[in-house]
C-alpha cells in the first residue's frame, strides 16, 4: 500500500553571521550547508498494518511523514501511496489519507468542533448523509458530545486530540498518519486514544503509521516497529525482535535489609543503586531468573524483589548508543 524506496531529503541551511556587519553580509552572500535529514530510507507497509515509527528528536521521523503526506518534496527516491506519488499529486493523495499532528491543529481555532467538521466535510466533498453518519459515529465512540459546541481554543488537550482524530477520519481515509498523537496527554486520555486507534485499525482496517516518543503507544498498538536515527532506518521488524536484538535481558529489582556490598554472579550488571534499593540487569542466556534469585538470596537477606522485562526505552537507547 505504501512503498518507499531510496528516499532522501536534504535541507539547505543558511549559515548566519551574527552582529550588524554579519547581518549585512548575509544579505549579499548566502552560504548554505546541506543537511541530510533522511538518507536512503526503504520500506513497505501493507494494507491494515499499524506501524510504529521511532527515533530521537531530529532523527527524520517528521520529515519522512511530511514527504509521505506530500508536504515536502523528496530530494531523491520514490514514494508510492496506493499508486499515487504524494508530492506530484498532492490533492489526489490528500483524499485517501488522514493526518494528525500532535503539536499542530487541523481544526479552526475560533470555531466549535462541529463547525470544523462541517467545513472539512465540504473541503473533502463528503456526501452530507455520509458526513452526518461519520460525525454521529465519532461523537459516540470518542465521546465528543459535551464540547461539540465549544470553540476549539477552549478545549483541553485531550478533548482537542479526540476532535483531531475525528476530523482526520471524516472522509474515511484508508491511511492514517499520526505524528506524536499522545504528546502532552495524561494517562487516561492516552488510553482512550490508544483504544480508539486500535479499534479503527482492527475493525475498519485503517492502515496506521505512527510516530511517538511514548513507547507504550507502540507496545499497545503496533506489531511492527521502524527505528530511524540520523536519517537512516536502523531497525524494521517486530517489537519482540527489537527487544531480542541485544540478547535477552531482564531487570531484577531488589530491596535489601542491610546497606551492604552486593556481589553479582556472571551475566549480571548493576544498573543503579539507591541505598538499599538495587536494580540489576541480567542476560537470560547466561543466567536464569530463579538461579540469580537463589544466588542472591543465599548471600543477602532480601525484603522484596521483582523481575521485569527490559523496557523498550532501554532497548532503543542501546540501539542509538551502538549506532553512535
Amino acid at each position: 500500500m505504501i512503498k518507499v524506496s531510496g528516499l532522501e531529503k536534504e535541507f539547505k541551511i543558511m549559515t548566519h553571521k551574527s552582529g550588524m556587519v554579519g547581518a549585512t553580509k548575509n544579505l549579499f552572500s548566502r552560504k548554505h550547508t546541506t543537511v541530510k535529514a533522511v538518507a536512503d530510507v526503504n520500506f513497505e507497509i501493507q494494507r491494515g498494518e499499524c506501524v510504529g515509527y521511532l527515533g530521537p528528536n531530529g532523527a527524520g521521523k517528521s520529515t519522512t511523514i511530511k514527504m509521505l503526506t506530500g508536504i515536502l518534496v523528496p530530494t531523491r527516491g520514490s514514494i508510492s501511496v496506493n499508486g499515487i506519488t504524494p508530492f506530484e499529486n498532492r490533492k489526489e493523495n490528500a483524499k485517501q489519507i488522514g493526518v494528525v499532528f500532535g503539536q499542530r491543529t487541523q481544526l479552526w481555532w475560533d470555531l466549535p468542533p462541529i463547525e470544523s467538521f462541517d467545513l472539512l466535510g465540504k473541503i473533502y466533498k463528503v456526501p452530507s448523509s455520509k458526513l452526518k453518519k461519520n460525525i454521529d459515529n465519532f461523537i459516540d465512540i470518542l465521546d465528543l458530545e459535551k464540547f461539540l459546541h465549544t470553540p476549539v481554543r477552549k478545549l483541553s488537550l485531550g478533548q482537542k486530540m479526540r476532535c483531531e482524530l475525528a476530523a482526520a477520519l471524516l472522509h474515511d481515509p484508508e491511511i492514517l498518519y499520526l505524528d506524536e498523537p499522545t504528546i502532552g496527554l495524561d494517562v487516561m486520555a492516552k488510553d482512550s486514544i490508544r483504544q480508539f486507534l486500535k479499534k479503527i485499525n482492527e475493525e475498519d482496517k485503517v492502515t496506521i503509521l505512527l510516530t511517538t516518543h511514548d513507547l507504550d503507544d507502540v507496545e499497545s498498538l503496533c506489531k511492527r516497529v521502524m527505528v530511524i536515527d540520523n536519517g537512516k532506518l536502523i531497525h524494521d521488524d517486530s517489537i519482540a525482535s527489537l527487544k531480542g536484538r541485544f540478547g535477552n535481558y531482564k531487570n531484577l529489582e531488589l530491596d535489601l535489609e542491610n546497606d551492604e556490598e552486593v556481589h553479582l554472579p556472571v551475566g549480571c550488571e548493576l544498573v543503579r543503586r539507591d541505598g538499599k534499593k538495587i536494580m540489576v540487569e541480567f542476560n537470560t542466556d547466561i543466567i536464569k531468573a530463579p538461579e540469580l534469585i537463589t544466588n542472591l538470596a543465599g548471600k543477602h537477606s532480601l525484603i522484596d524483589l521483582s523481575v521485569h522485562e527490559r523496557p523498550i526505552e532501554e532497548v532503543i537507547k542501546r540501539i542509538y548508543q551502538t549506532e553512535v
Partner: protein
Amino acid sequence: MRENISIYFTLLKAYTLGQMSYRSSYLYEMLGMAILTLVNICGIYIIFETFESVGGWSFWEVVYLYGLTTIAMGIAQLLASGLNHIPEFVRTGDFDRYLIRPISPLVHILPYSFALHRVGRLIQGVIALVVSLYMRGIDPGGFELWIICSTLFSLMIVYFALFLIGATFTFWTIQSAELFNAFTYGGMEMSKYPVSIYQPWLRNIFLFIIPVGFVSYYPTVILFNKHEPLNSPEFFQYITPLVALCFLAAALKFWKFGIKHYQSTGS
C-alpha cells in the same frame, strides 16, 4: 472552479463571523482612510498649482488615475488579505495543513481574513473616479464604461498577482518578500500618474516587467483621447485584460514553484 468558489465563500463566512467582534475599530480605520484620501488628493492639487499640467495631463485626469488605482488596489487587497498570513504560516509551519487538503491552498488561505475596513477605501476611490469623470466632462457611454471597467479589472488582477508573488517569496526568505513588496507599493504610486512622465528605464519596468503602468496608462490614453508621446503600437490599448491575465498566470506558476520549495519546520 465552481466548487472552489463555493468552498471559498463557505470559509469566508466562517472566518468573518469570528471577526465581527472587532467592529468598532473598523469605524476609526475608515475615518483614517478618508483623511488619507483627502491628503493624497490635496497633494495632487498642490502639484498642479505649481505646474498646471503633468506631462500634458490635467488635474482631473490625474485624479481619475488616482481613483482607478485606489479602487483596483482596494479590491485586490480585499481578495488577497489572507495572503498576509503566509509569512506567519511559513514561519510556524502551519502551512503544512493547507498542503494535506484536497483543495488548492489558495482557496483555503485567501478567505482566511477579509479586511472589511478596506471597503471604506474603495468607496473613496469610487468617489474620486466619478467626480473626476464628471469634472473632465466625460459622458460615459457603453464604450467608456467598457474601458473603465476593463482597466479596473486588469489593474486589480495585476495587483493581486503582485501580492501573490510577494507572498510566494516567503517560501525562501521573509526579507526577499519585503523587498518585493517595494515593487507592489511602488507600482501603486507609479500608476497614479501617467507613466509617460517617468524616466525611460523606470517607465519600462512598470510597462513591460510589472505591467501596472501598461494596464492603467494605455486605456486611459484612449478614454481621454490624449496624445501618446511614447509612440507605442496602437493594439496595446486593447490587450490590457490579456496582459493582466498572462501576468496572473505567471504569478500562479511561480506560486506553485514556491510551494515545492516549502521546507516546513521541525516538530
